[in-house]
């Protein structure tokens, strides 16, 4: 479960060599939009050589490969289907594309006798993909979906705004579909890297809509995303109190500080503690 996913241009050596230092939970090495056509081969070699030679110990490794309609997809899969890649991010996802890519990866995994299965994160960035999101998100290797609002709004012929009213329905649909199949929903990047207040509001909204994390296009966005997608200390302390009290209770519902606590609240408290453990936010056990 990643709170922040940082895009790193695949042909940028200085950013690649520092990619695990920015504090993102996941790094997305981008071979697609940030790489010029004439540099696709160089970017693929650069990312591959980096991942072969250096162990990224503290973050999820994702590679955004080129899409089905390009001549680069097969070369990307061939070059990078190895154990050092946790997941491929798939642009312009459709059910058919994910099926095709899954089969290609399976063959490479078997031939190379990889130790683990490479997972997939499709990008929902067309109206067609949005209509298919339920079918896409429930596919075997899909661990989550990313909303790509820039391409989505372009495909819808609408102007994207900072407030994001025009993408609210798509965001809702994506987060609900992901949650329905117990997968992750990652929100679209906030594209004004100088507007930290705007980013804050955008992250708060994404969290409120049910997204589990957000993509970032600049390292300076990481701290804010991580902070807001983490449970607060207040939430953690209250969750700990709930779980402690729940162990003692014999009734299905009880109250703490005048608030009714029943099964959904206990489940939410358990989720908060799982997240807090995952992100290293728990202090010493208090009992």
């Amino acid at each position, binding site marked *: 479960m990643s709170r922040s996913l940082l895009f790193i241009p695949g042909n940028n*050596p*200085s950013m690649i*060599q520092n990619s695990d230092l920015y504090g993102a939970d996941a790094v997305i090495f981008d071979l697609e939009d940030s790489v010029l056509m004439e540099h696709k*081969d*160089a970017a693929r*070699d*650069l990312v*591959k*050589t*980096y991942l*072969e*030679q*250096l162990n990224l110990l503290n973050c999820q490794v994702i590679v955004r490969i080129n899409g089905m309609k390009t001549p680069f997809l097969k070369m990307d899969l061939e070059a990078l289907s190895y154990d050092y890649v946790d997941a491929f991010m798939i642009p312009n996802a459709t059910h058919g594309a994910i099926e095709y890519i899954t089969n290609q990866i399976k063959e490479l995994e078997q031939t190379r006798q990889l130790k683990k299965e490479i997972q997939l994160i499709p990008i929902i960035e067309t109206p067609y993909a949005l209509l298919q999101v339920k079918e896409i998100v429930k596919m075997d290797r899909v661990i989550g979906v990313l909303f790509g609002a820039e391409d989505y709004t372009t495909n819808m012929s609408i102007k994207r705004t900072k407030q994001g009213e025009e993408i609210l329905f798509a965001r809702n649909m994506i987060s609900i579909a992901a949650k329905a199949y117990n997968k992750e929903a990652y929100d679209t990047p906030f594209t004004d890297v100088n507007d930290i207040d705007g980013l804050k509001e955008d992250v708060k909204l994404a969290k409120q809509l049910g997204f589990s994390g957000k993509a970032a296009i600049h390292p300076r966005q990481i701290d804010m995303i991580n902070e807001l997608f983490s449970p607060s200390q207040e939430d953690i302390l209250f969750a700990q109190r709930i779980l402690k009290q729940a162990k003692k209770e014999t009734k299905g519902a009880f109250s703490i500080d005048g608030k009714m606590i029943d099964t959904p609240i206990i489940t939410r408290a358990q989720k908060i503690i799982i997240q807090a453990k995952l992100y290293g936010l728990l202090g010493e056990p208090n009992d």
Partner: protein
Amino acid sequence: MKESQAGSVESCDCRITVRKQQGNTVEVKSIVYELYGDHIKNLILDTLERQNIKDIYVLCEDKGAVDFVIVSRLVTALKRLENSDE
């Protein structure tokens, strides 16, 4: 004579130029030549040896690239040279 290039002369990168010749020759121009010139040359020679390449001229114009960047730019330049022959 056919040449291929990969990389750039931006900071933390290097530009590798390759062309076919008899035997291997590696020339390095680097902003950190005094400290790392020999290391870069050996890194390139090792990479050529691993790929069993014996007849190539390599020019590395280095702007502070770390090892994986130099290796990858060399690999790309060699592939481009090979593809230009096809």
